[in-house]
């Protein structure tokens, strides 16, 4: 059945005119991911309201490409300008930029492109292999398990907000409270609208995403007075050998596999995301390669984080598709897009519409490979895009955000909300508060509350015995461990602290 669904999904992807959507999505994702500070998340937030009238299939084709299409391009600016296109590409800077300064820019970019494509393929294959296992486990997942899983996802997101753990937890709490605004799903009581009829149906997510990410980034770009995105002159002609760069990946199969496995595993954990995956893979590579010159232009220092960053896409799809629990900003957008088009992630989707799942998966693989191939060809010329003046980029992206907010429901209130959350997002950004905690909590609020009330009701009528549910006990232990680890680390004697490299 899985093989049949995979085959059907592949046929659908390559059927005309379906094929156009992943191509367009990939190109758009490449452009946006290439612009540091703008990113694929902004594009996805813009795409949601503009694709409102599309079919679920078209949406899945596009968004699969948007998720997969941007991850490699951000590494090009990391390599050329020492400016990460997206946060997960920061690890690539460590060895990519020294390579570029040594005249090996093409080598580094080719290595990144190849590692991205192969890493994403390995991640997706692991996801496909896990789907039958997850379908079995899903039977044991009830309301109590969903609550603990969602709380664990939120806790993990907050905990990995390095240096801003307290702010991460607060942002998560605030996101949940914003998610509770509107009608109570059980009693239909109106909550926290403060007299505004606009909020009767709750806070709409699309304006929040547009403001928190799209508008906030443009506000920061404007206020920071950068003349161009990269604030640097262009790279000129790129030198180095693409063949040598691609060959470096194939000559290090163990490192490729190790980084991809790490990336996929980390991607499965809600909230952890590409940044952690790429840095963990980089750190592991540095430790496991005895003759490495990491930090000084070692090509393996580009291979490892890029493979991990793309492999995590496969892993991160698992909690989204199986439980409807997003783990990153990108999967939040994907989940929002799917839900708005009537595609509800969870056991029903994996049981009854596996073909659609595979359309998403194939679109993701296709866009990863297309990005790597196209990106390899246009990297040098595309680098000039980063010299677009900020004063031109700010109003254009701002215009797209306004358009997205108005196109969603045709409501001026949505536009006001977008600007309001733009201000909130800007404030969070400049004060170091993690926005990802907030949005994940916002998306999970309804799921959390409904399942919490169900679990409590089941407990009241004696249908929920905690000790009879091993999966629940395991998840509770995991949650406690996640919350306790930072405290335990602080209590450890200072001499035993390992200095982070």
């Amino acid at each position: 059945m899985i093989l049949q669904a995979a085959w059907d999904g592949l046929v659908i992807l390559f059927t005309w005119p379906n094929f156009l959507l992943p191509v367009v999505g990939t190109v758009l994702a490449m452009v946006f991911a290439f612009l540091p500070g703008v990113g694929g998340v902004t594009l996805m937030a813009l795409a949601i309201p503009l694709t409102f009238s599309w079919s679920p299939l078209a949406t899945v084709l596009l968004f699969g490409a948007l998720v997969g299409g941007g991850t490699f391009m951000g590494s090009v600016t990391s390599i050329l300008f020492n400016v990460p296109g997206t946060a997960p590409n920061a690890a690539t800077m460590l060895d990519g930029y020294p390579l570029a300064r040594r005249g090996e820019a093409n080598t580094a970019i080719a290595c990144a492109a190849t590692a991205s494509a192969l890493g994403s393929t390995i991640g997706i294959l692991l996801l496909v292999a896990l789907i039958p296992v997850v379908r079995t486990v899903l039977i044991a997942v009830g309301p109590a398990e969903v609550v603990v899983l969602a709380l664990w996802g939120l806790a993990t997101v907050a905990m990995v907000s390095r240096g801003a753990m307290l702010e991460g937890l607060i942002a998560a709490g605030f996101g949940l409270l914003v998610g509770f605004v509107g009608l109570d799903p059980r009693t239909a009581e109106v909550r926290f609208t403060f007299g505004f009829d606009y909020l009767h149906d709750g806070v709409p997510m699309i304006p929040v995403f547009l403001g928190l990410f799209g508008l906030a980034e443009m506000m920061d770009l404007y206020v920071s007075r950068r003349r161009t995105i990269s604030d640097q002159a262009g790279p000129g002609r790129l030198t180095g050998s693409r063949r040598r760069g691609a060959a470096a990946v194939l000559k290090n199969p163990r490192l490729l596999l190790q980084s991809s496995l790490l990336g996929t595993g980390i991607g499965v954990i809600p909230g952890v995301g590409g940044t952690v995956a790429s840095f963990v893979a980089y750190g592991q590579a540095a430790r496991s390669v005895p003759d490495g010159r990491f930090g000084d232009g070692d090509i393996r220092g580009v291979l490892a984080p890029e493979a991990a960053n793309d492999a995590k896409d496969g892993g991160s799809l698992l909690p989204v598709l199986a439980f409807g629990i997003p783990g990153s900003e990108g999967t939040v957008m994907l989940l929002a897009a799917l839900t708005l088009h009537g595609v509800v992630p969870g056991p029903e989707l994996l049981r009854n519409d596996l073909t659609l799942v595979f359309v998403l998966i194939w679109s993701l693989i296709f866009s990863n490979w297309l990005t790597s191939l196209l990106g390899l060809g246009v990297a040098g010329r595309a680098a000039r895009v980063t010299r677009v003046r900020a004063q031109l980029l700010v109003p254009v992206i701002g215009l797209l955000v306004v358009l997205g907010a108005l196109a969603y429901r045709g409501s001026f209130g949505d536009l006001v909300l977008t600007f309001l959350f733009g201000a909130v997002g800007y404030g969070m950004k400049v004060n170091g508060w993690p926005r990802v905690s907030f949005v994940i909590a916002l998306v999970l609020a309804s799921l959390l509350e409904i399942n919490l009330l169900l679990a409590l009701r089941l407990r009241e009528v004696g249908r929920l015995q905690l000790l009879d549910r091993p999966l629940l006990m395991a998840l509770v232990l995991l949650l406690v461990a996640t919350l306790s680890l930072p405290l335990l680390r602080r209590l450890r004697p200072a001499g035993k602290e390992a200095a982070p490299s």
Partner: protein
Amino acid sequence: MSVGRPALTLVWTAAVAAVLVQSLALSPTSRLAPLWVAVPTLGLLLVKLVRDLVRGPEGAMEPPSAARVASVPRSIDERRARRPREARLAAWALLSLALVYAAGIVVSVPLVLAPFLRFEGELPWRRSLAVAAGISLGFYLIFVRLLAVTLPPGALL
């Protein structure tokens, strides 16, 4: 906007406190989840508030994460330097909102773009008008005509 750490924390604390107070007026079922979230969130906010006040405005900066390398202002001088630009940005935002409300987005786009490019982009008037016209036309042709995106009209036009 960039109002400094204690001020931002105070705003959030006030918001959560308002939610907490409103929760008490709800039925037990409706207020259960909000209370479970609001009470610990408020506790954490008070911890943060005390920490921000004790550290002072220059305070110990947390080690920056990879995700926010460039954007966090490093000093109070840097924060102060951003305030005039933030005020200008707020003015542009309010102007845009007012125009979109009154005239709709299609008419507002060139009306906002041209002066923005002139005063913020420091382009000559002629080039500002030309670029604004080009972008407005492109926007209209792609989104309104080609993609047939439905946009609300202005209140006055």
